[in-house]
């Protein structure tokens, strides 16, 4: 079943990384190092499909539990995935533009359109989770200090895993966990005011605009 020991080791790491949820905030470093030393074999065919506008919209809405129609509105009124960025995000526009086929290629504006869609959605989610932590979807029970700092707690680790679980049906790896935790420190060093909110928004953005979230 496992053709080599590398693969077996990798599975073990993945299994153990799944248990990181309950570990301390800094406990991921060792596992992260082990992970990095295990290169994966690239798929010789590497066949993937691009998520098109409607799939991206629905996915995001499901991951972040948001209204798919209100998740991203340019100028507060123009729907991103259904109108403004529809073709740029890989969909076709048969009725409006006599375009009967999906674009085969990625276009120069696709990544920017995705950024706008995801960023708007992540900002909404972060805001909702901050306002009502008890009913939060991603950043549940994440606490802020009186000066707006993120209080380091298990809830932060759980939030990162929740984001990955909802997005990719897997926990964050130890490396990803480590990187996202360090990201908060970097944000705080750069701009302490609103650091927690910005970390929530931008962690969500960084994960949900990655190629793993864009292709399947």
């Amino acid at each position, binding site marked *: 079943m496992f053709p080599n020991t590398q693969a077996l080791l990798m599975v073990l790491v993945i299994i153990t990384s799944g248990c990181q949820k309950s570990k301390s905030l800094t406990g991921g470093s060792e596992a992260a190092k082990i992970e990095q030393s295990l290169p994966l074999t690239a798929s010789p065919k590497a066949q993937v499909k691009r998520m098109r506008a409607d799939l991206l919209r629905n996915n995001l809405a499901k991951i972040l539990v948001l209204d798919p129609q209100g998740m991203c509105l340019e100028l507060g009124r123009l729907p991103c995935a259904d109108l403004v*960025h529809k073709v740029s995000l890989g969909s076709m526009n048969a009725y409006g533009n006599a375009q009967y086929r999906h674009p085969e290629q990625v276009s120069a504006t696709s990544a920017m359109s995705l950024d706008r869609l995801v960023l708007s959605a992540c900002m909404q989610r972060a805001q909702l989770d901050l306002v009502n932590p008890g009913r939060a979807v991603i950043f549940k029970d994440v606490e802020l200090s009186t000066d707006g700092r993120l209080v380091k707690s298990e809830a932060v680790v759980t939030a990162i895993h929740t984001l990955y679980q909802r997005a990719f049906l897997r926990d964050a790896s130890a490396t990803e966990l480590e990187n996202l935790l360090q990201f908060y420190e970097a944000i705080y060093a750069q701009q302490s005011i609103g650091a927690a909110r910005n970390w929530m928004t931008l962690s969500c953005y960084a994960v949900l605009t990655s190629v793993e979230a864009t292709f399947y």
Partner: protein
Amino acid sequence: MKTAMNRRKVLQMLMGSPLLNGCLKAQSVPTSGLASGASAGPRKFLFVFTAMGGASINDCFLARRASEVKDASTLNVFPDLLVKSIDGTELRAVDMASDAIGALPFPVKAVQSRFLSKYKNDIMVATCTGTAVAHPEAQRRSVTGHDAWNGRTLQEAVAAQYGQGLLLPNINMATVGYAEHGRDRSLPGFAMAEPVPDPAFFPFSLHGYKGIQGVPDDALMAMARQLRDQKLEPQSAFYQTFGANPLIQDWMKFRAQQGRFEQADAINRLNPFEDSKDLPFKNFGLNPNRDGEILREVFPDIGPDPLQTQALLAYLSVTQGLTCTATFGLGMNVTIDGKDEDNPLLTNTPTAFDYSHNAHRSTQAVLWHRILDTMDRLITLLKVTEYQNGESYWDHSMIYIATDFGRDKTRKENLREFPSGHDVNNGVVIISPMVNGGRVLGGVDLKTLKTYGFNPETGDPESGREMTEKEIYAGILHALDVDTSGSGLPSMRAMRRKV
């Protein structure tokens, strides 16, 4: 409102005058720094106007009077008074009016002579006989010369020659066959067209986050992207497994260019709209193009009028230094100018020129008028915008009016309005200071109204010859000074301006 109308009237009177020239020059946005890795020498710019559905050359530049032909009652000719000859050329114009477009109760007032008189020295008509009567395929062939150069479109060839280093060398706002990519696999990736389905919305997709209320600042956004690009993504199992996929590679290549778009402030520079209650750009931290007011005077109907909106985006993307070829034109959908609620005007018929199946004469009239009106506005702006060394953008530009095919040359006896089918025989219109302007290359057989060809070197009419799509394709590229070495394209000296 009264003031705006007065300003508009004044500007319209000034179209092409030195006064408007000075006005735009003073407010034009400097473009330095937008392009990197640009090829040496001045660029050339190609605007392809897509005359969807079959624009008949016999209903505009090559119109014939009833008195000129023997079988006038059954050929598509006009009452003598409607056809105007343009001084010093063999070009013709049709000025006519009608109460309806077939069953569509919209009045038509079409004036072609004004445009022809104004630009006659830059207008070249070259006769051509196509090879397809199916719309999408004929449209594709009109821009590939029936795969004359490995299937590369004219726009791709121009972008490959002049688009190196530009952010969006080739934008395409057209539809159906005109929106197809070419088939040349050796085409450099940057020369492929960027589809622009809606010119009004397009600027929003030129920045990853500007204009989103409450967004983290530039530095934080850069940190988040760095985290994603350098840490999260490369280490992910998904990327390590599938990262070699060409789609993912393209995605990452384009994503790496995002910063250039954002630095260029393309989201604002390509936005000609006015901040208003309906479009509250400023509330969202956006500042539309500062030349907007002047641009809207020349294109007063941007927004409701998709054609004007497209033409203005084409102008802006070229003159802001992002693009060297822009494709736009009539779409399949009906458009109506409803400014005067009591007297609305139809500005695009259902399926554009193909509505000639129902009402040939008025469809051709209303749409040719619309094309020429839009081109006039575009050329006006290009002429008054300096490119370099005192030369205007127009000095380096070409407009190619591409169409699917011609229409039937015949009609039922003496019918003023009649249906027409598709006919491969037609001609193309090219407007540019770089072409053999003021000329009709080829001619019209007065017995059949079919066009005949010309000598590719001298331009002399040759009644036994029909020009091919490949020859027209070659002539356009050569006039634009595109290097076609090794392509096997024929020399078409007659289509270039003699210097």
